[in-house]
């Protein structure tokens, strides 16, 4: 196999691995025998001690822990992810704004004008960016 073909095959394999990881939905894949921490009873002080008051290199060590699937850098992050799932944390049901109906309800006042004084804010609250991928958000909250 030529170098170019090998590189292409490697790239295809990597892409398939990425797809596989993001098809996993809520299941954390671990190496056999590896256990996650049960954080269901962690209060705010403990959560902060584990992931807030720590150095960046403690939350993202030099090398990734290969015992856990690629969405996570280490077991603790996967533990937070799983605990959020177990505790029933859900996505907040945001709404997007329809300026015309807001204006009507506000008795004709141009509500959008207030928001428009802040560059980008009306667009942020409109339909354009209202889609979300639930698992991306869950991983974000578990790893950030």
């Amino acid at each position, binding site marked *: 196999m030529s170098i170019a073909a090998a590189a292409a095959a490697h790239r295809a394999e990597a*892409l398939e691995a*990425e*797809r596989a*990881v*993001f098809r996993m939905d809520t299941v954390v894949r671990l190496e056999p025998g590896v256990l996650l921490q049960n954080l269901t*009873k962690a*209060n*705010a*002080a*403990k*959560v*902060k001690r584990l*992931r*807030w008051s720590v150095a960046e290199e403690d939350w993202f060590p030099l090398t990734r822990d290969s015992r856990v699937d690629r*969405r*996570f*850098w280490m077991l603790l*992050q996967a533990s937070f992810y799983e605990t959020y799932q177990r*505790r*029933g*944390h*859900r*996505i*907040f*049901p*945001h*709404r*997007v*704004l*329809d300026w015309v*109906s*807001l204006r009507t*309800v*506000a*008795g004709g*006042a141009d*509500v959008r004008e*207030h928001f428009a*004084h*802040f*560059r*980008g*804010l009306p*667009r*942020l*609250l409109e*339909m354009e*960016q*209202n*889609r*979300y*991928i*639930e698992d*991306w*958000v*869950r*991983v*974000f*909250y578990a790893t*950030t």
Partner: protein
Amino acid sequence: MFGGQVFGLSRATIAGILGVDLVDVSLHERVYGDADPPCRAMIGGIAPSHEVISQCFHQPFPASYARVPSLLTPEAYVVHMALQRTLLLRSGYPEGFTGLQQLLLLHILTDEPFDIVDFILAEIEDVITDGMGVVRQFPCAHWISFICSMIMPAESPISGVYRQDEAPRFPVYRSTAPQDRRRGRHADRAAMARLSAEVQA
């Protein structure tokens, strides 16, 4: 972390992706000082003075009146309710009107700049640092997803997921008028009843 990679995102990068300006005004800092998160659980904080916030309410609005959403002017009420479902997420306890909610409303109505990125990050920090005993909902899912989609190369199969039509979307907010009888709770209505018919009109 996203797509198996660690990304370091500065506030400037986030502002660039979301298309907003960075401003040296943190509303969370003004209300909660330099307190560590989670700030939301703290009682109080510094609310705007009566002198400045009273412009948001039906007049006359003496200092002895409770600052409840039902007493806001129709325009202020609509903006406040819209903010509750978009930027400063609060569900339940509709008669509550925290210092942070008051300050945000005031800034929007008076066109006074504040840092939107700081505001969003502070709300996210609050959720992350809260204990597991409190089941909190994850805010800002659409902005987080948008940022993730922007930091991955366009050809990545991961970011392709975001562009598919099947990706869930948040619905449009349907606002109600302050006098709508389907809205609010008893405390809200009681506050309205305390006002004279002339003020309510």
